[in-house]
């Protein structure tokens, strides 16, 4: 197992409108991207499970094969900036995504 953060330093999350948060993960090279893709570890179901979400709360799960990127968009529990808001800009998912484990062997 290795963490996503050890495979790329290009991970972000951010509001996508007032009701969603989008996560963007890009890999610097095709080899790393393919390794992650082929591992089967980064799927909509597994990300939902990781963040304790119902499957339908992952609104978008897209892969960009040309630029080696993932877009994962999550429904907010409530619209941004309302009562009990703790992450107004929706930037907080990049931390746990960096800790997300991918089932490939660590590089020597």
């Amino acid at each position: 197992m290795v963490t996503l953060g050890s495979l790329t330093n290009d991970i972000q999350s951010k509001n996508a409108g007032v009701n969603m948060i989008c996560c963007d993960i890009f890999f610097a090279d095709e080899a790393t991207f393919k390794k992650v893709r082929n591992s089967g570890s980064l799927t909509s179901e597994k990300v939902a499970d990781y963040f304790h979400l119902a499957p339908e709360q992952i609104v978008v799960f897209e892969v960009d094969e040309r630029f080696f990127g993932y877009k994962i968009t999550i429904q907010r529990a409530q619209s941004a900036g309302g009562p009990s808001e703790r992450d107004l800009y929706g930037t907080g998912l990049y931390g746990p995504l960096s800790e997300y484990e991918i089932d490939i062997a660590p590089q020597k």
Partner: protein
Amino acid sequence: MPQRKEGLSCLVATGHLGYSPLHPETFWRGLEQFSPKAIIADSGSCDIGPEPLASGKASSSAEWQKHDIEILLLGARQKHIPLIIGSASDTGTNEGVDQYAQIVRDVVTEQRLGPLKLGLIKHDMTRDYLRGLLRQGGTIRGLDGFPPLQRRDIERTSQFVPVMGVEPIMQCLAEEPDVIITSRTSDCCPFAAFAMHHGYNADLAYFWGKVLECGSFVAYPKMVNHSVLGTIYEDRIAVTAIHENQRVTPVSLRKHAAYERSSFKGEAVAGGFIHIDGMEAEEVDEKTAAAWGSRFEPSSTYNVKLEGAGYVGHKAEYFVGIRSQSFIQKLDEVISYTRKELRSHYQDVPYELYFSRYGIDGVLGAREPRKREGIHEVGLLIEVIAAEKELAMGIAKLVGRLLLFTPVLSERGSAGRIQLRNEEASYYGMAYEWTINHVIEFASPQEANHFPITYQTVRPA
């Protein structure tokens, strides 16, 4: 059309004018080095939450806003190129347009600039207009899970803004003002309008605007408020980093093209959809990447988005510390007991009470993936929202005292279970929420023309 071969360029010095002060060094360097044909700045966002719109108070400091406008205006006048500012003063209200216009007048006087022609684009939509639309049986469609707009949504909205497309800005550009200030517009539209005004095609113009609207955030490594240069050609767009440590790369362009958007496929603006999933990009030089392959698809109706926000109540916050293992282990139980105790004191009074457990799951709440282990200290934020300030403050304080002496824990001798930073809770002010996130579907851009334009000549006073 002019400038076809060499393209049309603009300098972008900030991703959100006024939000934090822009860096003048890269702006002046870019202005000298590239001789851009315009300076364009987006100044608005709904990222800042519902508060600035509902309260009518900008999220940015007036000092930073003036700082940014002064630098951009000095540069624009020095080179005799237009300055276009979209979504004035964070939210793009009419008051924001007036506020920025006054800053322009002040700077013109203080710096002995001008005379210059100022174009102001406001909006003329009122809550009565929305009530009328609903009365006539119209539907105002909700976005991203919001149900269709109801009368009660309008009543709990303090303020709303319609989001203009490129048409009003292009109409204004045709009169060749030196400075344009707009009410709320899609972030990409001031750029797209400038390009389309000069004859460039919509397929690339909107895309160009989207990758430019955040300024230097488009480049690697991410830095804010440094200048970048955008150039549009007939068959491609290009973005050049100006800061010595930044580069624009094919991937940084691709990533930014879908920044803050739910899908890699693109986004909707007034009048259509910007498709970016066909985009291709290549490196041009060590600071520049170019891209092409985007497509603008006009929609069957001309959809104008509305953003509206309102008050929920008064908000009190009380931040307390917990440094006891037994307390941390029983925290859930203590909290639910405290809720019950509190309810017995405030039986018939509506209030909202939230706990955020910093150190456990304060940021992500129920979505936190990490197991709770090895935690020795928790910061507990108590948030209370109620109809009156005194009520919210009183409830927050009582929650603190109930926690201080909670009987749930087994230790016999503790003199206080939590640790207080202050005797009193803090009053935040009002609490807010988004009330409108909808679109009005007009038959045509003409029918959607709710964006009146005025011009004035500004001279040093």
